[in-house]
């Protein structure tokens, strides 16, 4: 059993000041000098922490953000400019020329330029809508957590009602009956998913103020605005961020679903969903009109979702 050792030289005591003698064996090589050792190559460790898919996702999202922010500067043409004589020309690779790398649509407009404009609009809408829904959700969630009692019950009921109605259906009715403008559309989509965020915000706030740091700060005599603004909000921000990354792709998909029904972003503006929606009639005759934006939707939502999952795992120590 125990690394049997030469015992204390004899039964007698060594002088007190004597340096510890050589009874100390050299450290077992198996044990290493410290508890941490990098048995992995740096690259492997790096990719394990940041899987290649995640890096690609981040790259794609950054690319999309760049396109959204600066795309109009590099767009080859005005996305509304028509050239009726060049309508439905093929993209490069399907017989087309570099004049229109991704081909043209039914009005002879450059698909690349339209794609860039669409990314701008779609991402802006999705971003703003997500922001709106987070704001509403957090505000109501906090309100419920703060007020408790009847007010909380009321808010919970509204949350229930919202959750009970598939949002698509509500959006469909609202848009069809109220007409459409980009602002209305964005605000409407901003109502998507707020109830989820409200639930999370309420749950976390209640947990924090029942046993956690919020209770402690309250016991210091802090005012509610300090508790919620300075303490709870920053603390739940990461969780909210993750649930916003869930919301984001859903908003893009919702937008495309509504565009399919002709209720999304309206011409002359364009969006990814609108491009797919209007392009679907050409799915066989000129598939590139629809496939390019559809691919962007799929890849972008995919990347945001993957990133969201990854962040959630990262933020959630229980999953480690």
């Amino acid at each position, binding site marked *: 059993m*125990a690394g049997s050792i030469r015992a204390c030289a004899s039964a007698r005591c060594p002088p007190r000041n004597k340096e510890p003698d050589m009874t100390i064996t050299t450290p077992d090589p198996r*044990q290493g000098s410290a508890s*941490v050792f990098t*048995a992995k190559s740096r690259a492997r460790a790096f990719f394990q922490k940041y899987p290649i898919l995640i890096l690609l996702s981040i790259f794609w999202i950054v690319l999309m953000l760049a396109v959204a922010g600066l795309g109009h500067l590099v767009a080859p043409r005005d996305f509304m400019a028509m050239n009726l004589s060049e309508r439905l020309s093929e993209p490069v690779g399907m017989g087309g020329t570099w004049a229109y790398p991704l081909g043209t649509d039914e009005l002879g407009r450059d698909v690349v330029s339209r794609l860039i404009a669409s990314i701008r609009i779609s991402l802006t809408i999705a971003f703003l809508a997500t922001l709106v829904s987070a704001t509403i959700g957090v505000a109501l969630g906090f309100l419920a957590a703060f007020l408790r009692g009847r007010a909380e019950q009321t808010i919970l009921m509204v949350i229930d009602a919202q959750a009970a109605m598939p949002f698509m259906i509500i959006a469909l009715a609202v848009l069809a009956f109220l007409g459409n403008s980009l602002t209305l559309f964005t605000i409407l989509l901003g109502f998507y998913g707020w109830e989820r965020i409200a639930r999370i915000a309420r749950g976390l706030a209640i947990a924090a103020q029942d046993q956690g740091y919020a209770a402690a700060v309250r016991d210091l005599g802090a005012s509610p605005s300090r508790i919620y603004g300075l303490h709870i909000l920053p603390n739940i921000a990461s969780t909210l961020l993750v649930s916003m990354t869930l919301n984001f792709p859903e908003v893009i998909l919702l937008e495309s679903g509504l565009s399919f029904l002709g209720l999304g972003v309206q011409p002359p503006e364009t969006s990814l969903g609108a491009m797919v929606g209007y392009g679907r009639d050409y799915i066989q005759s000129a598939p590139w009109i629809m496939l390019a934006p559809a691919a962007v939707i799929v890849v972008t939502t995919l990347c945001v979702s993957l990133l969201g999952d990854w962040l959630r795992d990262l933020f959630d120590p229980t999953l480690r």
Partner: protein
Amino acid sequence: MTTPLMQLRGLTVDFDTGPRFVRALHGIDMEIRRGETLGVVGESGCGKSITWLAALGLLGGARVSGQVLFDGDDLLGMGPRALSKVRGGRVALIFQDPASALNPVQRVGRQIGEALALHRGLRGDAARTEARRLLDRVGMSNAAQRLNEYPHELSGGMNQRVMIAMALAGEPDLLIADEPTTALDATIQAQILDLLGNLQRETGMALALISHDLGVIADMADRVAVMYAGRVIEEAPAADLFATPGHPYTRGLLAALPDLDGPRARLAAIPGSVPAPNGLPPGCAFARRCAHVDGVCETAPPTLRVLPDAPARHVACARMDALWCGQNSVAAAPQTRERANA
């Protein structure tokens, strides 16, 4: 002397923490003889639990190496089927926080029955009768009715009894109890410890009792292993250990404990805190908190060695020779000395 029932040899455990591996156990050597009670103490996170989980192959997702000899067979090399025969059959485990260690959606009768079916081949009425007998045996009132209840309907103490009954189902040679009473109240804790003691006496099984509470260990154990930062740093018969602790850490621990009796004095706290598993110093892990530290302590971790004069005692301290003999000549009990200093 017969071979020990269970022997851990150089057991190491590495966890994959993403960018690197972190070694949580640095070669544990320990043994349990038949019928004996081995107490394992140490601060939270020092590796008490994972030692036994690793030994029984219950530690998914970690690299385990070393040897775990149970009755001569190496458990680490065993196939899953053979291993599950040992688990629950010859070696049983009970855990801290019994309420969450039981499946919340199954009635306790069924959970006990499962163990009976696995290791004793009992089913149906036979299993039921046996389950009831086991519950009776662990001192559960109203056993027949309890079988139909869910864990959340029982109190913590009763759940721990259920766990024990389940562990007894396989008639094990060794019971590993991982902090079985930490979550329980003092009076209930007394009941459970009492029960474990009685069972051990009746069945003659060996008991590995893990706890961070020196009081509990002092109460129950025949032999004690003290762990610190993934290593066993002292191992001794319980009586000797509490009378004359060897390792500076053990001494400090005993001195830092307030007492119910005696004069009330300032506590002799060990300064500093346990190093994080991913930040152990190259030498003795306790060096930074140790009053007797010396250059030699910082070069390499010391290994367990037999103490002079006391062949049953092992301590892992580079300066043990000096300390041990010094202590023997200067003061009888470290705690009194340190208290006097305060």
